[in-house]
């Protein structure tokens, strides 16, 4: 077993790449012991798989030679259900895709239909949508931070992260009555206006948040154990990410500055001032840094949106019965996991003829065998965490 992990940060990525490439796949150099390859069944019920994901792992001792993901345990036929119901009835189904980031799912769905109809969303609704999106991004990243910390033995950040997530869910609950399956957007706008005092309480929370993020960073960023478990693990280059279709924080941690909020802005993202955090090494540690930095940027966006809020309408002019022209459309948003797109084919009736989801988790999970090759079984846990999959979205 080659468990030599240099602690110094210099050239770690290069060292890890070289290590991954030099993994002997077939017969090992002769040793005193009998070498035996073994097939290990990882999941579907395993706490670190964050749902029901099964991996068939071929290992030599602790070293991973090959990983075969087996998905579909949570398949509920969402795309089929879309076809049987009217357009507005599809929104609650999207909550159940990525169930830790329901707002961005609702958003992508509504955006697609709005594009098809040519409907304009009023400015206040745009701002509130961005606020909900960014709160959702924060809460999704907090879940990721807490759970992937626990996967690697860092239990404390979990309590900190879930404390703040709880507050965010309270904001959602006050806005739309639900905490997870929000159903908080409508085609052409929003279902409700904000309740009294919501914005003020949000401002208080947002002012407080950077110091909380400092707390997480204090626990992990320079933590020697955390670094030993993450630096140089699962290195992937930007080119490879694009080749695998990987988007979101994983792509940005590999040095590609691409974010749909900037590249193809929707709602009012084009007038907001925020940075797109990137890193160059593309390892698990960098993906952690990128997500934490993204949380700080979400705070910036939230503050700007709150400043710009003005009274106004919250729903655009949408026909009572939604019957789009018989056309096809694709629209996508930057969900916390990556590019979340919907492809809709209409045949002119009040139900979508075909509704396809482009789920970031599903596509990103494809790259797991590539990331895991040559690492140890315990690193596999870190790697499942670092891709940040939600099985509801993988299996749909």
């Amino acid at each position: 077993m080659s468990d030599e992990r240099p602690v110094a940060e210099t050239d770690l990525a290069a060292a890890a790449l070289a290590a991954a490439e030099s993994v002997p796949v077939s017969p090992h150099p002769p040793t005193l012991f009998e070498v035996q390859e073994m097939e290990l069944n990882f999941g579907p019920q395993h706490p670190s798989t964050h749902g029901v994901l099964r991996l068939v792992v071929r290992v030599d001792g602790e070293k991973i030679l090959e990983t075969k993901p087996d998905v579909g345990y949570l398949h509920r036929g969402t795309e089929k259900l879309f076809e049987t119901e009217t357009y507005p009835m599809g929104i609650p189904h999207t909550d159940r895709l990525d169930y830790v980031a329901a707002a961005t799912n609702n958003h992508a769905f509504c955006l697609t239909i709005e594009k098809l109809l040519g409907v304009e969303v009023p400015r206040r609704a745009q701002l509130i949508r961005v606020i909900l999106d960014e709160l959702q991004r924060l809460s999704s990243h907090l879940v990721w931070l807490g759970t992937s910390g626990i996967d690697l033995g860092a239990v404390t950040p979990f309590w900190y992260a879930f404390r703040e997530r709880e507050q965010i869910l309270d904001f959602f609950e006050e806005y739309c009555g639900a905490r997870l399956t929000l159903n908080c957007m409508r085609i052409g706008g929003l279902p409700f206006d904000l309740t009294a005092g919501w914005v003020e309480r949000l401002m208080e929370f947002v002012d407080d948040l950077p110091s909380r993020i400092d707390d997480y960073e204090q626990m992990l960023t320079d933590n020697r154990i955390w670094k030993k478990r993450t630096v140089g693990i699962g290195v992937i280059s930007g080119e490879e990410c694009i080749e695998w279709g990987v988007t979101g924080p994983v792509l940005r941690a590999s040095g590609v500055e691409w974010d749909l909020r900037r590249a193809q802005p929707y709602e009012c993202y084009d007038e907001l001032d925020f940075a797109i955090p990137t890193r160059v090494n593309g390892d698990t540690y960098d993906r952690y840094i990128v997500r934490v930095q993204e949380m700080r940027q979400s705070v910036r966006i939230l503050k700007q949106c709150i400043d710009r809020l003005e009274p106004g309408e919250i729903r655009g002019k949408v026909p009572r019965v939604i019957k789009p022209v018989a056309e096809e459309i694709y629209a996508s948003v930057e969900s916390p996991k990556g590019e979340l797109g919907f492809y809709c084919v209409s045949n002119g009736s009040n139900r979508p003829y075909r509704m396809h989801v482009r789920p970031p988790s599903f596509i990103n999970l494809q790259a797991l065998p590539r990331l895991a090759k040559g690492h140890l079984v315990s690193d596999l846990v870190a790697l499942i965490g670092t891709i940040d999959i939600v099985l509801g979205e993988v299996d749909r």
Partner: protein
Amino acid sequence: MADETTPPPEAAPPPPSAAAPAHKPAPPKKVEATDAGAHPWVESIRRAVPDAVVSAKEFARQVTVVVDREKVAQVARHLKDAEDFRYCVDVTAVDWRARQPRFDVVYHFYSFSKNDRIRVKCAVGDGEEVPSIAEVFLAANWPERETFDMFGIRFAGHPDLRRILTWDGFEGYPLRKDFPVEGISTGAAVYPEEWPEGGGPSPDDPNRKAVS
């Protein structure tokens, strides 16, 4: 899809400084598809892969090119190498049931340098094979498997064409229009007396409430 590199006129919000009266949303605009036969990307495909382009259209600034089924892999290769569409966003299909050929396989590609998308489609009959693009784009591997799983469209040359969301041995293709929404009997029901298989609510159920 010439997407929002410049903000689309209908979504242009008033500048924050302008103390305009409450912003009134405009009524929906009629968007219509136009022919995109002269689009530079379509021209480029036409030059590189002769007889590939069947038709092309543009709707809501999204370009759709219908190509010949046999030439999909060549078109994908050309788009990747010559037109810099390096990111394969998605592969999926649409079942047109009564139409001949029955299916459309739909590909979305994205170019980082153009910051734009293109949609490529090809018509496939029931039982016909489409050349796999999994060799051109690694990203197309799982989406093609999913398309096979859900529609039963086979991709020739795919490295690992197995079912992905349903299990090996599942019979039927769930996203085909003739597959019942309420499900089929698979022999896996836990309490068949109480919850019979294939007993889910059908969209034609009179008790089902539909909102517009």
